[in-house]
């Protein structure tokens, strides 16, 4: 069912969260029609912005009672359409739940609400000598709730791992409005089933996390950041293989191609990447001071051996920050070279990077599309940015075809369809490339354990079964 909410339900929702925090005016709802992936646009029936676990629980109970779909949303920065509304659903946003509830420096834990911006947690814990390790490139704006939903990564996940390694406990509002606590300090080693691990990365399909307990790390003592400049992407790709193959353990290895360098250098986040270069690598080592210089020297030799034109080293925190800013703001900076972009996300075995990059560039040529590459080379996590103009329907169709070919290519060389952005709606169609029907059915069943009615973020992640009869027996699970 689409259209306005039943008046009584709307009144009840307003009485729970406050009249101003329920949005039903279709003009205002337009603002929520996309997340970070603008190729899709669907306006929701309403947006509800609760401020506490209790309010979320009550809101979910009401919506569940009316059999209305629920699409959770953080800052709406996701790149796979995970927070894309459904036409008959209601968005439950976490923007007002933006408090850091506690920081336990001795146990290196923090308890936060889901709307806390990723980078703010590190800002708040730095005075305690601690930080939160997962650092998505959107960390200055994306929220921890969204990070939990997407199991987000980031450049430094090469050494430190993704979100799931840091979430130790969750308070979750389930489909009927029930509040459950999963994990929590001290439960990690207890040997019970890892429900926290199951929930992280569930893309809003299992429930809404309303409190998140995360592990913090001590600030690293030293850091070395290098910028390797190459004439070709291929040479840069070989350098990555050589660095990792040499046994080094960099904290991050990021690759930036010519088109991205041009976009970044035209932006206010210009990092001083040479605009005539074919590719650049940002390589970082961190840890105790002793040995860092030796590691950096070895990485430099790897780059030079693979044909680097030059290897620079950041000599101050300001220089280091500038190098990273250029990388982290690259997605937004693409607006300087095209009105729309689709950021793909796939993973391939590191050793196959050079050939995959060459093939992606051929795919771009074949479809007459500009493709900019900026990604986490160290763990083979590709992010081809397909640039286009949304108002050109024919071009959009070419983007979809090229996207599909890139995904098939990555899977064919032994990779998979997502590294860190999640499946959302964008990559749901590619799930068949990596999962057979038995596995897909298993995913559907797991989802129904948490959400028997299928009201949480429907249409995301798992494609509907070809044969509806193959769906699990909903009534059976629900009862």
């Amino acid at each position: 069912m689409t259209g306005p909410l039943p008046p009584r339900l709307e009144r009840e929702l307003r009485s729970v969260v406050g009249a101003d925090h329920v949005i039903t005016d279709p003009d205002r709802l337009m603002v929520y029609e996309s997340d970070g992936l603008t190729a899709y646009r669907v306006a929701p029936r309403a947006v509800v912005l609760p401020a506490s676990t209790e309010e979320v629980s009550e809101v979910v109970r009401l919506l569940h009672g009316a059999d209305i779909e629920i699409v959770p949303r953080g800052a709406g920065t996701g790149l796979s359409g995970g927070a894309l509304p459904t036409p008959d659903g209601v968005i439950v946003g976490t923007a007002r739940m933006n408090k850091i509830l506690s920081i336990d420096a001795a146990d290196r834990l923090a308890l936060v609400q889901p709307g806390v911006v990723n980078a703010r947690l590190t800002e708040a814990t730095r005075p305690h000598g601690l930080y939160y390790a997962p650092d998505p490139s959107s960390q200055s704006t994306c929220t921890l709730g969204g990070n939990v939903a997407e199991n987000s990564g980031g450049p430094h996940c090469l050494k430190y791992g993704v979100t799931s390694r840091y979430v130790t406990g969750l308070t979750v509002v389930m489909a009927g409005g029930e509040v459950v606590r999963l994990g929590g300090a001290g439960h990690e080693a207890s040997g019970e089933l890892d429900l926290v691990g199951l929930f992280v990365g569930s893309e809003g399909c299992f429930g809404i996390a309303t409190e998140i307990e995360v592990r913090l790390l001590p600030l690293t003592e030293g850091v070395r950041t290098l910028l390797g400049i190459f004439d070709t992407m291929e040479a840069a790709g070989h350098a990555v293989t050589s660095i990792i193959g040499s046994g080094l353990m960099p904290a991050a290895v990021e690759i930036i191609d010519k088109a991205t360098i041009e976009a970044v250098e035209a932006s206010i986040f210009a990092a001083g990447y040479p605009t005539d270069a074919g590719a650049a690598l940002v390589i970082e080592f961190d840890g105790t001071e002793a040995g860092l210089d030796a590691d950096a020297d070895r990485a430099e030799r790897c780059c030079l051996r693979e044909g680097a034109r030059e290897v620079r080293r950041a000599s101050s925190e300001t220089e280091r920050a500038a190098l990273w800013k250029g990388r982290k703001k690259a997605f937004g900076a693409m607006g300087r070279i095209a009105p729309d972009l689709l950021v793909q996300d796939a993973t391939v075995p590191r050793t196959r990077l050079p050939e995959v990059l060459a093939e992606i560039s051929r795919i771009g040529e074949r479809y007459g599309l500009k493709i900019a590459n900026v990604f986490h080379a160290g763990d083979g996590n590709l992010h081809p940015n397909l640039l286009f103009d949304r108002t050109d329907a024919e071009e959009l169709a070419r983007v979809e075809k090229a996207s599909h070919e890139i995904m098939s290519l990555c899977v064919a060389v032994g990779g998979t369809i997502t590294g860190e952005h999640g499946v959302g709606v964008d990559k749901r169609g590619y799930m068949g490339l990596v999962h057979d029907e038995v596995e897909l059915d298993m995913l559907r069943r797991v989802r129904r354990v948490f959400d028997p009615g299928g009201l949480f973020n429907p249409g995301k992640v798992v494609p509907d079964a070809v044969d509806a009869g193959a769906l699990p027996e909903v009534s059976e699970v629900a009862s």
Partner: protein
Amino acid sequence: MAQAYEAQRERLLPCVHCGFCLPACPTYNRLGDEADSPRGRLHLMGAVVEGRLDPASDAFQTHIDRCLGCRACEPVCPSGVEYGALLELARATATEARPPGVLTRGLLALMGRPLLRKPFLLSGRILRATGLAALATRVIPSRGPLASVRLALAMLDATRPWSPEAAEGRRTSESRAVPRRDRALSPGDAPPNRGRVGVMLGCVQAGLYSRVNEATVRTLEANGYEVVTVAGQDCCGALHAHAGRLDGARALAENNIVAFERAGVDFIAANAAGCGAAMKDYDVLFEADAAMSARAAASSERVRDVTELLASAGPRPGAEVRLSVAYDHPCHLLHAQGVSGPPISVLEAVPGVEVRVIVDADECCGGAGIYGLTHPDLGARIGGDKVAAVRAASAQVACTANPGCMMQIGAGLRLEGSSQAVVHPVEVLDESYRRAGFYH
């Protein structure tokens, strides 16, 4: 209208919906509704341009109006979306579809016409000097129909001159007789000639903060600038542009461009961040006007904040003023002009001054013209957070470089019962020079 849409369409293209602007926005941070974020407002602007949304709709009117115009979203935007220019175009679209409220219309009518403005500001000075403004803020209840009047009078009372000795915690002993338009005479070697400067006197600044204009002239001269009087200048037009009255803004801007051209100055010094930002954007205001665009661009090139001119000259040190200063960045200096260091350099040049940049100094104070009067609840929340940050710095004076912010923070302090002075950086430098005997 078609032309305004075209100008918006071009400027909207770079936005890729990445959302990096969300946490920079004071209204989004407090309300949590993406329609009150820069990305959301840009989306609404796009919908109007695409013909999907009526500019007279509540959605467009409310959310475009609720923007503070602080432009904190610009420095965090990787795509370089010109949000400030877009907001003015959107406001023009919005006001054409639905005229603004009586308060906004009245203020624009007053500020745009010197014949009305001068008596209005004079009556303000009388209310201030007689102490009626201060008295009224104490007797008018904080809630109820007169709350806006109370806020306006508190803003007025906040413009009263400060006493440096009182701020330092000393009794006033020496005579404070600084002649009104004293010329700075430097003892010893005269500073090198750094160029010819005309000072933008402003409307509110000239009416309520003439002492800041006087301090501007004296400190510039003490640092080797030749300051000339520029006749024929008017309000900068920022209030009009922010309200979407772009034609009104252009008329005022043209007067200023002509006046400063005639004065033959190397630099136009602004001591109100809002005026400086508007004048640096005159090139954008006239971009579609073939006859004026080159002159407007040349004028924009010459505009400097007074602290930029002073900082590039050092500024030369004066005598000790023992003050702790809580500094807050004006949005139109920090975000719109990208000027953060110079005001602090000016303060730090004074021996004895300890600068404490307040927490969240990069966030808007909620002043934003008459935002506190047009949006009392949200304005008070944003202003309340700012006043709390100023008080947490436990400094002797508060300091910022824009009259609107000085009034907003000063009013907030007064309404909380604090009598802490709010000063412009050049006032502190001026006091230091006065004590050093530069003006005798």
